[in-house]
């Protein structure tokens, strides 16, 4: 698997969520994802970007375009926030510690092909998602 393209988008304030959506849309379009798959991965990115900002206190998104064996887009959201004590619970629909609907993580997982989350309490959280063509 080769990384064809990589860039990092900072996530420090709310308008950055819009930048994340726009950049993911561009790359997802370039690799030829179908409209539905583009919409899914952009929506997933929007949810995770908001989590990074609200719960993680800000961070960044690494955007990568992959080639081999298939084309794909991989997004890695990182923050140095408080971390998630119980990931299994956080992935459940309806779970939220904020003001949201609690659809963020569990819902996002359904929108992508691969979903990986690593979190250490007191150190931060990293969520990686991939959508293949």
């Amino acid at each position, binding site marked *: 698997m080769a990384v064809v393209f990589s860039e990092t988008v900072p996530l420090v304030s709310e*308008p950055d969520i819009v930048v994340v959506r726009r950049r993911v849309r561009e790359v997802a379009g370039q690799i030829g994802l179908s409209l539905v798959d583009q*919409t*899914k991965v952009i*929506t997933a990115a929007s949810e995770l970007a*908001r989590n990074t900002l609200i719960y993680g206190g800000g961070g960044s998104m690494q955007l990568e375009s992959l080639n081999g064996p298939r084309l794909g887009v991989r997004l890695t959201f990182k923050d140095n926030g408080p971390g998630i004590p119980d990931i299994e619970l956080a992935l459940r629909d309806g779970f939220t510690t904020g003001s949201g*609907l609690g659809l963020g993580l569990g*819902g996002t997982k359904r929108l992508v092909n691969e979903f990986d989350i690593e979190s250490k309490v007191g150190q931060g959280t990293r969520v990686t998602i991939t959508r293949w063509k």
Partner: protein
Amino acid sequence: MEKIPILRMGEFLLVTIQVDMHDRLAMTLQDDLTKRISETNAHGVLIDISTLEIVDSFIGRMLGNIAAMSRVLDARTVVVGMQPAVAITLVELGMSLPGVRTALNVDAGMKLLRESLNGHGENGQGQSDGRRL
């Protein structure tokens, strides 16, 4: 400050969302709309989202809030023009917009609003071209 225009047409208010909304803009729209409903005595609100490429949980929640708030203010809300890819993604995300009436296009949405104003099809029952997600 950036704002989404709200047009008045008789007893209805019309909103066309044509920008990729950041979260604060969505909140401003929610506030502005409720204010305009009470100022103008509007009995219906039509929100055209046909140019929106994604609806994430935040925007979905805003649409639900607008529908609920306008209902309390004696106005009906219809969301029109949702793109199929957006509908698929929203449902997979776990958000089926309960309480939000939808129609395929502006014409069908206006018809729904007029009918509910005339006392027919209250709460969207027995509509022919209105639909719920």
